[in-house]
């Protein structure tokens, strides 16, 4: 089977580095813009909720950060799996880059969820609640992955061993998503993916979706910039990296 040229190029560190260099200003700029517009729209323009009044406005950041955390895990697992099976070093670099960003966003989703829980459920935290527990497990999978990496001196070995953890842990992602349907949880079911279309009117739905796009782009920007730094770290001996370092030195 003959694979297209761009597919092979995606395994080449200098090619991917330059691609990221070209893409990241667009992703970063557009992401920042959408986040700014969505925040003002969600906080100022969107009407209050008929049940939750003003506190519902956390809905413009909480599901989005939770979704980015889950997406980061899936990207990490797929990249680690590709790196493990086909021994693509760049794929391992991508997996390592996704992990800390995913951990931060998952942490953010847990914090904003706890803050939202107090006025609506009467508690910040409920031990044993399936959605909260599996989301917390997602955070611990990220942290476990990073801690396990730290236990190896040899980078190739760390890549291979942690890839197994990343791939096995991916089963948690659909469990987090469906936990609110499979079990009784304090957490409500999905507003966006509910039966019969989104359970929101358009004056709330538009900023809600803008924030999804904004966080996705901001995450992509962070991921590409992190991947670039990871490439510099891993390819430090390559001529083009040295030239880059000399060029960038003050």
């Amino acid at each position, binding site marked *: 089977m003959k694979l297209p040229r761009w597919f092979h190029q995606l395994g080449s560190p200098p090619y991917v580095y330059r691609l990221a260099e070209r893409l990241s200003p667009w992703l970063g700029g557009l992401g920042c813009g959408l986040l700014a517009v969505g925040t003002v729209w969600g906080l100022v323009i969107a009407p209050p909720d008929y049940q939750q*009044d*003003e506190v519902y406005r956390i809905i413009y950041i909480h599901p989005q950060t939770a979704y980015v955390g889950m997406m980061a895990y899936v990207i990490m697992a797929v990249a680690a799996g590709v790196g493990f099976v086909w021994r693509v070093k760049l794929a391992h670099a991508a997996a390592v880059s996704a992990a800390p960003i995913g951990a931060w*966003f998952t942490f*953010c989703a847990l914090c904003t969820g706890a803050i939202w829980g107090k006025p609506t459920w009467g508690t910040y935290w409920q031990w044993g609640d399936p959605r909260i527990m599996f989301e917390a497990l997602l955070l611990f999978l990220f942290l476990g992955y990073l801690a396990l990496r730290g236990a190896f001196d040899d980078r190739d070995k760390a890549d291979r061993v942690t890839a197994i953890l990343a791939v096995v842990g991916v089963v948690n992602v659909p469990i987090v998503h469906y936990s609110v349907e499979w079990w009784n949880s304090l957490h409500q079911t999905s507003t966006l993916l509910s039966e019969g279309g989104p359970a929101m009117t358009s004056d709330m739905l538009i900023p809600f979706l803008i924030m999804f796009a904004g966080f996705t782009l901001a995450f992509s920007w962070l991921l590409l910039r992190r991947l670039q730094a990871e490439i510099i*770290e891993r390819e*430090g001996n390559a001529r083009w990296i040295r030239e880059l*370092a000399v060029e960038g030195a003050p």
Partner: protein
Amino acid sequence: MTEFLQMGGDGAYVWSAYGITLAVLIINVWLVRAKRRAALRRALELSTQTELPRKQPTVRRLQ
């Protein structure tokens, strides 16, 4: 304005949630910059310690 900041009495919840999210974004940008700077510094050290490798010979595919 104060009405907007109070958020119907739930201002502390709304603003702390937005504040944490903004902080997480800023921390992530800062972390990735710090990582890039450290990686470039290390690459620069490597290049001053050892000679740059000779340019690799290009492998051409046989026609």
